[in-house]
C-alpha cells in the first residue's frame, strides 16, 4: 500500500492524549446525537448506523418540509481539525498484530476515527505484507461487545483507583511476608513489556514470570537448548530450501509463524519462463493439515509411525554421511520407500534443504536438529541467531506452577493474557488451585473462564487501542500504535504492572526509552532518535538483524532420543489434537468471522468434530455428523464425526480451541473442549498419539459444511500438471488455452471494447495454499453478513470469496502420479486393474472462487430490472437498490458465486421483528459491533442479490486520486482486499489494457486459463495451472 499515508503530524508525538481524544471525536463540539437517538430510536448508545439513520431522516425531513420555514440544523465541522483527518477519507496507520504465537505487521485503515480494516504491511521483512485470517479478523475483536468494560472484583465492578490501592496494598504485604508472586502470561513478543515485568520483579523480588501457551512449542526450545545450548525457537528460511520435509508440522497453517513461512515457501515455488524450478515438499503427517494438502508428496502415518520414520530418516542420512545409526526402528513399507526418496533428495541438496517437525516432543526435536545438522542446514535454512520469539512457553515451568498453586505456596498470581482454566488439560483443577492463592488477578480482554475465577479481573486494551512494540525475531522490531481511544474503561496490562511496581511513567514512555536505549543504538541509519522514532512509527517496523548467522556445533544425544522413540508403543487408534487455522488456541472463539470461515480442509464451520479415516467410517457405518465418543483413560468426549480423506488409518483428529463457555455469544458452546486430551510427558505437553477408543454415541449433530461434494468430476476447471511435464511444455494440461480466442471469434455478437481501463484478476493455483485469509478480508472489506450455523447448514452462507477444495486419488493403474481419479462414481470401483480405495493417499487442489466478472455475463441477460450489468471498465456490477430478488442471475451463474439475502441479516430492510436470529444472537448487529462496517460499501437488505464487486470502492478511490493528481491510473495501482490479504501473492489484480501491468503480463503466460471459457462468457478472472513437483520420485522410490 505504498500510496497510502501512514502517519503524519508531529502533534501525534507530543500531545498524544489530547490529540487522540480530539481525533476520535468526529466533531470538536459535541452534537447531541446520543440524546436524540436515546429518546427516539433505541434506548442504546448510538453507533454509526444510528447516526446515519438520523442524518438520513433530517435530510429527508428538510427536503420534504422545504416549503414551510423550519430551521435546518447545520452540522458543525471541526473547530480545530487534526491535520490528517479529512471526513470520508481513510488513513492508514502502521501497527502490529502480535498475540501469543500470532505475529503480523499490519496497516490499520482508519475511517473517520474508526479502525475498520487490517492490511498487510509490505515494509515488514518478516510478513512482507501478508496477513492471516486471524489478523484480518482482529479488528472485529476490538468491537466485540463481550469485552469487559470495567474492572471487577469478584462479581462487582470497581474503579481502577480502588483496584490499584487494594492490589498494591496486598502486594506490599506479600512482599513483606516474603510470599511468592507468580506472573503467568502468554508469549510476550514485546521487549518493553518484558522490561516492565522485570521492573515488577525488581520491585517484588519473590516474583517469577512463567510463560504459558495452550499450544506450545516448548519442546523445540528445549531441544535446541540440549543441542546447541540455546533455548530458542530458530528462524526458518523456507525460501532457501529446495527440499522441504515436514513431520506433522503445519508450518503454512498454524505452526510458529505461518504468514512468514508462507511468504518464504511460495517464493521458491512460483514458476515462470525464467524460473522453471520449484522446491519439492515432502510431508509426513497423520491428519490432513493445510500444509500437508499443499505438499508434493504426502505420507500419511499414525503419530507413532511418524516419530519412528523420523528415526529411520536420520539413520538413512547418517549412514550415507558416514554417521552411525541411532538404533533400528520398524516402519511401514510405504514409509520405507518414502524415506529413501526423501533421503536422496535431501542429500542431493545439502545446505539447501530443511526438515521441520511439529511434534511437541523432545526426542523428535533432537532428531530433527540432528538431521538438519547432518545436512548442514544450520546457517542457511535454519537461523539460530535471528531466532524466533513466538512460542516462548515453558511447559515444565507451567506444570511446576500448577504444583505450587496446589500446595498453596503461591501468595499472589497475576495471569496476563492467558486462559489456563480453559486451556489446561485439567483446567477445572487449576481453577480450584487458583482459589488457594491469597491474591489472584487476571488481565485479559474479557472475564473468561479464568478471569471469572480470580479475585480481580482487569480489562486490557485491545491492541488497536494501545501503544506497544514487538520483537517477533531477534533483531526485528515493530511498533503498535493506537488507532482509536479505548472504547471502554480499560487499561493496558503494562500500565497496571507499572503502577503496581510504583512507577509513575506511562507505558508508551517506557517503550520510547527502551527503543532509545536498545534499538536506536543498534542502527546507524538515523542520527537523531526523534527521526528514528518518527520513522519507526510511520513504517511500523525496524530491522536490525545481523546478516550471517554463526554456524553452530551440535551436541544432542541422538541415541537416547531414538531409543525413547523406539520404545513408544503404537496403539490401534491414536489421537491427534490440532490447532484450527481460524479459531487458533480458542482465543478467537468469539469472532463470528472466524467461526463462519470454513476450515480450509474440511470446509466445516461453527464446530469441531472428530475426523475419522474414511475407510474406518465405512467399516463402522459412520456418516458425517453421527455423534461418536472417544475415550482415553477416563476422559471421554462426544462429538460429531467427519469422514476425512487423507487422514492416516488408525488416527483420529480433533481441533482444539472449541467448547468455550465464557468467550461470548458467538463462541460459547460451539464444539467441545478437546484440551482435556492434552498429555504431559514430564517435560512437555503432548498433542499427538494418545491412545483412544471410539464408541457410537447415537444421535446426529449436523455439520455445517460449505462444500459437500469433494471431487472435480474430471472437469477442466482446476488444471494441474507436474514439474517435469511443465518443463517439457509450459502449457502442459492447459492445451485448451489456444482455443480461447476462437470462442470469441465464433460468437454471434461482436462484443464490446473496454478501454483504456479493463479490470482483470489472475489467480495462481500453484501459489494458493488455501489458508482462507482472502475470504475473511473480503468479509471485512465488503460488510459481508454472518449468517450463523443454521443458515450455513441450509447453504445460505454469504461469502463473496470462497476457496473450493477438491480431493483426487492417485490412479493405482497408472504409472504417472499425475494421473488422477477425480470422478466420485469411480471411487470404490474397479478402475483399470485395481480399486481406488486408498483414502489415505489423497491429493488436494484449492481454487479461490469469486465472481468471475464475465464480459459476456449470463447473469446480466436474465435480470428483468437491469439490476446487474456490465460496467464500461469490463466488470460486472450490481445495483442493490434496484434488485427485486428473482434469483435468476444466481441460477444462471455457471460459477455459483452470487449470494442472496435470504433473510434479514443486516436489519437493513423495512420490516420489523424479522431479523435473522443467528446473526442477531452472535452479536453482529450490536451497535458497537457495527462500528466495524465499511462506510464505502452498502449494507444489503433482505431479498437482494449480492456478490464480489472487484472491490469497486477501491477502484473508484484510486481513480479519484489519479484524477485529483491529473494522471492516469497505474496498471497495478488498485489492489483488492483479497489480494492484499493473500500471504502467498496468489492473487494479482489490475488493468489488463495497460501493457506494463502485472496482470496483463500474466495473461500471456502459458499456465493462464479461464474457467469455463468454452461457454464464451469471457471471464475477467483467469487461473494459472497448479504444478506438482513429483514425477521423478516414483522412479526413485
Amino acid at each position, binding site marked *: 500500500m505504498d500510496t497510502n499515508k501512514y502517519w503524519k503530524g508531529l502533534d501525534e508525538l507530543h500531545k498524544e492524549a489530547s490529540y487522540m481524544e480530539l481525533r476520535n471525536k468526529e466533531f470538536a463540539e459535541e452534537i447531541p446525537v446520543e440524546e436524540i437517538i436515546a429518546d427516539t430510536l433505541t434506548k442504546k448508545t448510538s453507533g454509526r448506523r444510528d447516526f446515519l439513520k438520523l442524518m438520513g431522516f433530517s435530510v429527508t425531513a428538510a427536503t420534504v418540509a422545504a416549503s414551510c420555514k423550519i430551521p435546518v440544523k447545520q452540522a458543525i465541522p471541526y473547530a480545530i481539525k487534526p491535520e490528517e483527518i479529512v471526513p470520508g477519507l481513510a488513513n492508514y496507520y502502521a501497527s502490529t498484530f502480535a498475540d501469543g504465537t500470532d505475529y503480523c505487521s499490519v496497516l490499520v485503515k482508519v475511517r473517520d476515527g474508526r479502525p475498520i480494516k487490517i492490511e498487510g504491511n509490505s515494509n515488514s521483512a518478516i510478513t512482507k505484507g501478508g496477513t492471516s485470517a486471524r489478523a484480518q479478523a482482529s479488528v472485529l475483536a476490538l468491537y466485540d461487545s463481550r469485552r469487559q468494560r470495567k474492572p471487577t472484583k469478584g462479581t462487582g465492578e470497581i474503579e481502577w483507583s480502588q483496584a490499584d490501592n487494594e492490589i498494591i496494598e496486598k502486594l506490599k504485604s506479600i512482599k513483606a511476608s516474603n510470599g511468592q508472586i507468580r506472573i503467568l502470561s502468554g508469549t510476550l513478543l514485546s521487549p518493553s513489556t518484558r522490561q516492565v515485568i522485570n521492573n515488577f520483579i525488581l520491585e517484588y523480588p519473590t516474583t517469577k514470570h512463567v510463560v504459558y501457551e495452550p499450544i506450545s512449542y516448548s519442546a523445540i526450545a528445549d531441544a535446541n537448548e540440549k543441542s546447541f545450548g540455546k533455548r530458542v525457537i530458530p528462524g526458518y528460511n523456507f525460501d532457501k530450501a529446495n527440499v522441504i520435509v515436514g513431520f506433522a508440522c503445519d508450518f503454512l497453517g498454524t505452526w510458529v509463524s505461518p504468514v512468514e513461512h508462507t511468504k518464504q515457501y511460495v517464493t521458491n515455488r512460483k514458476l515462470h519462463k525464467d524460473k522453471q524450478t520449484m522446491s519439492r515438499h515432502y510431508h509426513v503427517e497423520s491428519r490432513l493439515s493445510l500444509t500437508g494438502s499443499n505438499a508434493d508428496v504426502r505420507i500419511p502415518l499414525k503419530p507413532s509411525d511418524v516419530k519412528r520414520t523420523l528415526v529411520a530418516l536420520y539413520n538413512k542420512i547418517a549412514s550415507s554421511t558416514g554417521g552411525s545409526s541411532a538404533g533400528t526402528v520398524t516402519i511401514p513399507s510405504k514409509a520405507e520407500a518414502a524415506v529413501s526418496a526423501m533421503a536422496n533428495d535431501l542429500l542431493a541438496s545439502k545446505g539447501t534443504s530443511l526438515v521441520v517437525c511439529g511434534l511437541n516432543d523432545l526426542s523428535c526435536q533432537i532428531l530433527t536438529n540432528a538431521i538438519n545438522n547432518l545436512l548442514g542446514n544450520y546457517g542457511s535454512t535454519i537461523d539460530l541467531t535471528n531466532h524466533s520469539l513466538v512460542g516462548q512457553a515453558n511447559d515444565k515451568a507451567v506444570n511446576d506452577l500448577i504444583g505450587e498453586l496446589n500446595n498453596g505456596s503461591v501468595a499472589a498470581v497475576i495471569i496476563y493474557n492467558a486462559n489456563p482454566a480453559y486451556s489446561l488439560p485439567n483446567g477445572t483443577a487449576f481453577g480450584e488451585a487458583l482459589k488457594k492463592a491469597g491474591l489472584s488477578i487476571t488481565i485479559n480482554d474479557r472475564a473468561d473462564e479464568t478471569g471469572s475465577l480470580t479475585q480481580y479481573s482487569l480489562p486490557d486494551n485491545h491492541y488497536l487501542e494501545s501503544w506497544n512494540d514487538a520483537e517477533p525475531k531477534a533483531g526485528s522490531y515493530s511498533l503498535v500504535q493506537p488507532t482509536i481511544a479505548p472504547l471502554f474503561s480499560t487499561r493496558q496490562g503494562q500500565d497496571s504492572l507499572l503502577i503496581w511496581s510504583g512507577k509513575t511513567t506511562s507505558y508508551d514512555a517506557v517503550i520510547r526509552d527502551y527503543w532509545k536505549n536498545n534499538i536506536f543504538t543498534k542502527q546507524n541509519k538515523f542520527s537523531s532518535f526523534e527521526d528514528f522514532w518518527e520513522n519507526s512509527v510511520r513504517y511500523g517496523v525496524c530491522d536490525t538483524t545481523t546478516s550471517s548467522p554463526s554456524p553452530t556445533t551440535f551436541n544432542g544425544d541422538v541415541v537416547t532420543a531414538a531409543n525413547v522413540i523406539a520404545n513408544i508403543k503404537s496403539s490401534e487408534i491414536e489421537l491427534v489434537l490440532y490447532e484450527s487455522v481460524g479459531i487458533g488456541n480458542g482465543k478467537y472463539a468469539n469472532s463470528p468471522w472466524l467461526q463462519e470461515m470454513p476450515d480450509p480442509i474440511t470446509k466445516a464451520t461453527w464446530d469441531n468434530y472428530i475426523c475419522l479415516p474414511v475407510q474406518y467410517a465405512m467399516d463402522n457405518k459412520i456418516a458425517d455428523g453421527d455423534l461418536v465418543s472417544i475415550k482415553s483413560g477416563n476422559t471421554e468426549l462426544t462429538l460429531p464425526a467427519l469422514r476425512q480423506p487423507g487422514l492416516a488409518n488408525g488416527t483420529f483428529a480433533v481441533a482444539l480451541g472449541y467448547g468455550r463457555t465464557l468467550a461470548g455469544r458467538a463462541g460459547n458452546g460451539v464444539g467441545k473442549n478437546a484440551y482435556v486430551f492434552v498429555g504431559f510427558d514430564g517435560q512437555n505437553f503432548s498433542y499427538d498419539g494418545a491412545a483412544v477408543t471410539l464408541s457410537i454415541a447415537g444421535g446426529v449433530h449436523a455439520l455445517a459444511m460449505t462444500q459437500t461434494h469433494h471431487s472435480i468430476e474430471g472437469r477442466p476447471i482446476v488444471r494441474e500438471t507436474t514439474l517435469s511435464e511443465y518443463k517439457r511444455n509450459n502449457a502442459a494440461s492447459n492445451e485448451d488455452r489456444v482455443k480461447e480466442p476462437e470462442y470469441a471469434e465464433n460468437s454471434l455478437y461482436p*462484443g464490446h471494447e473496454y478501454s483504456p481501463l479493463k479490470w482483470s484478476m489472475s489467480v495462481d493455483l500453484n501459489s494458493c495454499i488455501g489458508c482462507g485469509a482472502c475470504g475473511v478480508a473480503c468479509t471485512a472489506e465488503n460488510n459481508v453478513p454472518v449468517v450463523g450455523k443454521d443458515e450455513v447448514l441450509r447453504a445460505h452462507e454469504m461469502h463473496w470469496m470462497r476457496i473450493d477444495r477438491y480431493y483426487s486419488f492417485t490412479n493405482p493403474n497408472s504409472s504417472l502420479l499425475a494421473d488422477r481419479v477425480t470422478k466420485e462414481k469411480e471411487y470404490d470401483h474397479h478402475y483399470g486393474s485395481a480399486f481406488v480405495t486408498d483414502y489415505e493417499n489423497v491429493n488436494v487442489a484449492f481454487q479461490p472462487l469469486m465472481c468471475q466478472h464475465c464480459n459476456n455475463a449470463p447473469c446480466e441477460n436474465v435480470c428483468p430490472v437491469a439490476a446487474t450489468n456490465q460496467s464500461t471498465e469490463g466488470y460486472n456490477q450490481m445495483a442493490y437498490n434496484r434488485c427485486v430478488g428473482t434469483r435468476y442471475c444466481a441460477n444462471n451463474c455457471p460459477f455459483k458465486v452470487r449470494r442472496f439475502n435470504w433473510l434479514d441479516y443486516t436489519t437493513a430492510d423495512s420490516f420489523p421483528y424479522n431479523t435473522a436470529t443467528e446473526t442477531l444472537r452472535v452479536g453482529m448487529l450490536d451497535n458497537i459491533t457495527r462500528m466495524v462496517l465499511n462506510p464505502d460499501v452498502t449494507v444489503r437488505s433482505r431479498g437482494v442479490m449480492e456478490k464480489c464487486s472487484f472491490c469497486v470502492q477501491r477502484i473508484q478511490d484510486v481513480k479519484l486520486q489519479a484524477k485529483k493528481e491529473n494522471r492516469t491510473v497505474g496498471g497495478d495501482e488498485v489492489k483488492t482486499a483479497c489480494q492484499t490479504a493473500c500471504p502467498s501473492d496468489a492473487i494479482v489484480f489490475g488493468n489488463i489494457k495497460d501493457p506494463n501491468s502485472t496482470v496483463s503480463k500474466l495473461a500471456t503466460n502459458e499456465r493462464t486459463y479461464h474457467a469455463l471459457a468454452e461457454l464464451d462468457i469471457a471471464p475477467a478472472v483467469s487461473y494459472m495451472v497448479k504444478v506438482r513437483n513429483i514425477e521423478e520420485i516414483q522412479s526413485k522410490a
Partner: protein
Amino acid sequence: MANNYIIGLFKDEEVLINAVKNIRAEGIKIYDVLTPFPVHGLDNAMGLKESRLHITGFVYGFAGTAIALGFMSWVFTSDWPMIYGGKPYFTFPAFIPIVFEFTVLLSGIGMTLTFLLRSGLYPGRIREKLDDRITDDTFCIVFNKDNKLNAEQEIKINSILKESGAFEIKEKNLKRHY
C-alpha cells in the same frame, strides 16, 4: 319520442328466416331481429352489411407493433444504452417476444372496446325488454311504428307474420328505445 314497435315472435330460426325474406320481398323495412343465438344466414336474409370490426383489429395490432418496437429500440439505443452479457445495444431478436405480445394485447383490447362501443353495450345498461323469452328460445322480428309505417303496411306486416309462422304478434310501446 315514443318507441312503438310491432313484434312478431317465432319458435324456429328457419321459419324466421323465411318470414324475413317474405317481408323484405314486400319492401317493408325490418327494424331489427332479435335471436337467442347467432342464426346463420339471417344477416344475408336481412341484407346486413359485413362487420368491419376485424379491420379495426388489424389497425390496433399494427399500432401495438410500432409502439413496442419503437419504444424498446429508443430505450436501448439512445435513452439508456447498457451492456448486457456483451450483447450489442440494439438486440433485435430479444425484442420479438415483447413486440408480439404487445401487438396481440392492443389488438384484443381495442377490438373488444370497439365492439362494446358500437353495440352500445356497457356494464349495467338498463333496457326495457320486448319479451323475456327472446334470450331463451324465441326469435323476434321488430318493426318500428314511428318509422313512417302507414296503416296498410301495418296490416300487411300482421298478415305476413301470420303466414310465415309467427306464433304471436303484438304491439309494444316502450318509454325508451329497448
